[in-house]
């Protein structure tokens, strides 16, 4: 078991390194000049050249890569220049993504500020999609070939097909503009305001996932409800809800956990658009701005953060199998 975990950990770290390296080189070999973007389309060449020098972009790409990687993770004492320190400190470990070209703030500071809003929406969305997905999938499976089943299947088709930008706009129009139940956009200052404002972006993201999970749970439940142990439970005279909840649904949720781990990436992908629509100050908005403006350090920071999150989530999913399924634990 320990050897398995160590192997998984090694491959996780390797994956993050590979993603970082690939992103760095892709970004740096593009025929684009961040200095030009920073200076603006009308900046004079002398001013662009000055900015390029200030940012160290006039050096060869391998030198920049070496410098970036050596600054990225450092182990040791306090930073040499605390005033211009831009690193995250985890005990003796220092993680430094550099300084944003455009916002001129440490990327760690930008990510620290953007991460809580994204997590808030992400977890709310996850709760919505799992709750709706599990409930609707279970009901559809129980009422198979009924109106509820066909209706649910039809709705999930729409839910999966509709892109988040469309769902977001519709929800914003209906629930915020017309019914005035939620703010049109923004983040809010108090926790209550933030939770209120988070609901629409979370629902936008959650509906997409809910459609997918509904299908998944429905199909799994249909298979499970035909199993011998379900028939046995019914033969023992157990009530139907006990059969469904205790024996069928619990097992049907196992593949759901796998998919949740894998869907962390798509949750972030969806958040990029959703956060823009609802002016949600999370990682999605930060990423869009950084990509449009070719803000290299921010792009790298976001990529590293999310590749780490996705890799970690999958690592945890692997671990969770052992707890959810005793057969795996015994191997």
């Amino acid at each position: 078991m320990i050897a398995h975990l160590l192997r998984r950990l090694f491959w996780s770290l390797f994956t993050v390194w590979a993603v970082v390296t690939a992103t760095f080189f892709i970004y740096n070999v593009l025929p684009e000049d961040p200095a030009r973007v920073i200076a603006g389309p009308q900046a004079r060449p002398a001013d662009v050249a000055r900015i390029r020098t200030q940012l160290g972009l006039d050096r060869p790409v391998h030198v920049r890569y070496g410098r970036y990687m050596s600054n990225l993770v450092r182990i040791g004492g306090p930073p040499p220049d605390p005033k211009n320190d831009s690193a995250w400190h985890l005990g003796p470990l220092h993680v430094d993504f550099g300084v944003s070209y455009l916002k001129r703030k440490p990327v760690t500071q930008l990510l620290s500020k953007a991460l809580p809003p994204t997590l808030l929406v992400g977890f709310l969305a996850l709760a919505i999609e799992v709750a709706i997905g599990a409930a609707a999938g279970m009901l559809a499976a129980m009422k198979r070939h009924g109106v509820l089943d066909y209706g649910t299947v039809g709705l999930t088709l729409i839910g999966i097909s509709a892109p988040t930008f469309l769902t977001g706009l519709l929800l914003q129009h209906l629930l915020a503009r017309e019914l005035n139940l939620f703010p049109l956009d923004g983040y809010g200052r108090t926790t209550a305001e933030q939770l209120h404002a988070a609901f629409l972006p979370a629902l936008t993201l959650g509906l997409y996932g809910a459609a997918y999970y509904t299908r998944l749970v429905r199909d799994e439940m249909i298979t499970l409800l035909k199993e011998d142990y379900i028939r046995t439970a019914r033969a023992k005279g157990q009530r139907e809800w006990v059969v469904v909840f205790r024996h069928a649904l619990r097992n049907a949720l196992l593949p759901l956990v796998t998919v949740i781990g894998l869907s962390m990436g798509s949750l972030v992908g969806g958040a990029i658009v959703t956060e823009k629509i609802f002016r949600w100050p999370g990682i999605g908005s930060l990423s869009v701005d950084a990509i449009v403006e070719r803000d290299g350090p921010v792009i790298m920071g976001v990529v590293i953060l999310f590749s780490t999150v996705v890799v970690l989530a999958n690592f945890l999913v692997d671990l969770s199998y052992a707890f959810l399924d005793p057969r795996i634990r015994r191997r």
Partner: protein
Amino acid sequence: MRSIRTKTEAPCSQQSVRGGTGARRLAYAVLVAGTLTAACRGGVAPPLGTDRDVPPERGGTLRTAFFTDVRGLDAATAFDTAASALESLLYDGLVSYDDAGRIVPVLAERIDKSPDGKRYTFPLRRGVLFHDGTELTAADVKRSIERALHVKTPCPVPSYYERIVGYSAYHDGKVDSLEGVRIDGDYQVSFELTEPDATFLHVLALPTVAPVCKSAGRVWERGFAIAPCGAGPFKLKRYEGGQIIELVRHDGYWDKGKPYLDGVEWYLSMQSFTQRFKFERGDLDYIRELSEADSLLYRSSPAWKGRGEWEPSLTTGGTFMNTEMPPFDNRHVRRAVSFGIDREQVAAVRSGHVRAHAKMVPNVLIPPTPDYPMQRYDYARALEEMKLAGYEYDPKTGRGGYPREINYLAILDSYAQTAAEIYQQQLARIGIRIKIQVVGWPTFLAKTGRRKTAEMGFAGWHADFPDPSTFFEPILSTRSIQDEESQNAAFFSHAEFDGVLDRARRSSDAKERDSLYRRAEEIVVEEAPWATTYTYSYYELWQPYVKGYRPHPVLSQHVRHAYLDSGGKQREARLRSCGTGLAWLDRVACPRAPARTTLALAGGRR
């Protein structure tokens, strides 16, 4: 005094809802009500408040929004449109523009220019206070300029100031002081230039070199971008990146009694459709970034007739032709393109925001007259030029023309892409086939700036400052050509043209400058390195209770002199905000608001 009606109730929004019981019924009701309300609402909401002639009154907060974020508000480094609008509220410079767009002294009492045009002296106003309460002195003016032009400051435009004596030595870090900026006592500052420069006052009017508080220091530090401090009419209260910037009145402002507003709230990164929704509710008082569809709705609405205005455009758009690459090394082909584009058709695709334009300098700076040199659409002349170029084309048979397909570089998701498709169709009629390559903005900049790389593509320019020189020198002079990063994408080099521009820059005689820029425009018409085709403008809207605002000829979103007529605004805005269209739902969604009905409100002061 006019009575105001809120949006008319549509009969279908009053339908009763029938359904099941309990939660199901409520859910059903909400869904149906929302859908019906949404379906029944068309067009745009009417204006809020009353439109009265009222003298300026103090108080109130103006709320507006940007589509983009604001990266920072340090005068020395922030140069984008969004930041500039806020900087004009936070900082006052030695000079700025009056309502007619003329340069006037602001923190300076007057502008003294030496006869040879190489020395400008500015006696300063006494008693000007920064936001931190300290008094502005000549030393602050010099320190602020040196801070902006310091070698370590990431200022995007230091070269604008290259004609100040000692600029190079200072900007390269060889000396500690900018020799050409001299202070004489606490209240006088002067500038020595290496040669006369007609654009100097314009670059001095940019926020880049506006005086900043002593707390900004002598050398740039990144913290000042989110804690700006100047001598402008408003000071910063709150800055949340991507969300909001709140400004409040600077009570120590030198122009007593101004500004009128208590504050300005500027929402950031707000989508244009959200801006519209908030404007309808009264959550925003003034907007500029409507989508073209929404702008058309407002412009065609009788209720909004005469309530919006086009922002004066300081932009020129069109297409460049690389004069170093075939076939555009042949001036007849360039002229054929210039004659072959029907500019009215190009503009018709986006009626309103895009207008036909056929000269380099925007109409705001040089109004067009019948005898002013301009490019024009002339199909017969276009065919003739093709013949002169050696690529005769027969439109009846489709034979002839330039034999090879020409790559046209356009920018993704921009009007340039749409315009390129129109050029493609129009130029095919004179025997020029173009293949459109759509790329992202950074790639576009990289490719068009590289020598012998881009044959033809989108060309656009926005005034750095309101002077005709900005539409010629940086983009068409020989000096602006480089092997990489060339701003002269046409790689156009013309000795007479360069000479004309140099003379115009040094001249302080307005008439002489006019005639020189007219000659420069003539050369562009004759040589056609660019085919200018359109100009782009924003349609601005403000509620009737917003007074004292008109789009400024030079400064975008210049709201510093605006004031609010408070009568009627608060109450109706709340009703609009809470009006779901259904009385029972209003009681749930906004219990303190009266049930929404057709409402008559007389305007009145709060």
